[in-house]
């Protein structure tokens, strides 16, 4: 008995080694080709969705873009988008504990908000990530008006924003993108993909509408 077990164990180990070996030696291109062949083979069996689901699991928080998915699977971006939508719909079901988000152009698995209070209980934490009103205002101004200079932001907020911009930059929520042609060639700021992710945005078009002023000109325009 024991010998048998030992033998089995060795076999398993050998198998594992072989697998590992294969994985390390096979070229990435081959892998891609294999995936392409596989998807072509069982097109109707919806293997692309299966593979994408698995990939989503592997990439974790780093996520996967449509371009990456279409390249790896050898399918069109439209097709990849369709597959992702199907997966998203499947995970949107109430019975699922996580969902597939697409913020800032990358798809990834996220646990559902409903889980959060229980996770807090499990890990006995009460700390929730915070963001100050000043940071929010500054981010809002940049997101709606980008690319924008520090002086323009300060003009709207009425307060100095130098430190705030540096903080937001350090948190990777904004980045510098070139310089304005204005005198002194001030730095232009814009929001990052991390900003999109932190605010559940797929693109800047999804930003909440700015409330309209009810000035006379606007009310006239209403009847146009």
């Amino acid at each position: 008995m024991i010998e048998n077990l030992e033998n089995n164990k060795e076999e398993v180990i050998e198998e594992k080694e072989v697998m590992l070996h294969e994985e390390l030696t096979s070229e990435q291109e081959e892998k891609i080709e294999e995936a392409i062949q596989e998807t072509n083979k069982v097109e109707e069996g919806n293997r692309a969705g299966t593979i994408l689901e698995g990939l989503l699991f592997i990439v974790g928080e780093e996520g996967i873009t449509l371009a990456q998915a279409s390249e790896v699977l050898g399918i069109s971006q439209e097709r990849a988008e369709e597959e992702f939508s199907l997966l998203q719909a499947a995970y949107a079901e109430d019975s699922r504990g996580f969902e597939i988000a697409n913020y800032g152009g990358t798809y990834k698995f996220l646990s559902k908000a409903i889980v959060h209070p229980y996770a807090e209980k499990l890990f006995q934490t009460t700390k929730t990530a915070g963001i100050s009103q000043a940071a929010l205002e500054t981010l809002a101004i940049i997101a709606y008006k980008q690319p924008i200079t520090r002086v323009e932001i300060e003009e709207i907020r009425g307060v100095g924003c130098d430190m705030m911009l540096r903080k937001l930059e350090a948190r990777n929520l904004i980045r510098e993108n070139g310089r304005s042609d204005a005198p002194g060639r001030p730095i232009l700021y814009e929001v990052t993909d991390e900003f999109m992710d932190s605010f559940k945005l797929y693109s800047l078009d999804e930003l909440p509408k700015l409330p309209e002023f009810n000035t006379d000109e606007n009310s006239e325009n209403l009847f146009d």
Partner: protein
Amino acid sequence: MTFTVAIDQFEGPLDLMLHLIKEQELDLFDLDISVLTDQYLTYLNHMEDLHLEVASEYLLELATLIEYKSKKILPKDQSLLEDEFEEDPKDRLVRRLLEYQQFKEVSEQLSDLYHQRAMQMSKPISIEVDEWTKPKTEDAPIDGSPYDLVKAMNKCLRRLQLSKPIETKFTAKELSMEDRSLQIKARLRDLPDTFSFETLIEDCNDMQMVIVTFLSILDLARQHTLVFTIDENETIWFKRG
């Protein structure tokens, strides 16, 4: 400290003005600047009485308000005013208040989104992915902004943290960038042609050393001793320059 509390109540002079307008039930579209100025001044004086520091931004806006109020009181030469193409300071103030209010309102919505998102967690990338990743042999052009480098560095640090058990160490020794550069140069002989930043920091036992290493490679890259490239997985690869 108390003064920060008082300042923190408002995000700036415009926020304070909006608060006063609401409190005094003033009409933003037919703004009575005199009332606003009085209220504003009262508030700032009150802050002074409490020995709270008033930030310079508040005083700047106060100066604008008083300037406008004084202009209104003084008899004005109508014809002279007509000639000036300068925007009416009142219109300008109202426009600024409205614009600020827009962003203030929308930032509340953003705050909701932020807190919703904070309730959703993700997992790090599978740790095995690093083991599969192979150095690229072809000459990849060096592109990417300093931000890509910073992002790659952050990712690297995060992975380093994940793969190591938590331990604390107190060390007094601080490695200088020059020493580290020499160490790296010496190690270059034993390293393969192309190697990753992860390989380079294998001998690091604390964050400071990782950072010194990073600074050193920046310096080495500047001296063209090393050439770096970042692949799509944001792994930093090096080659001898």
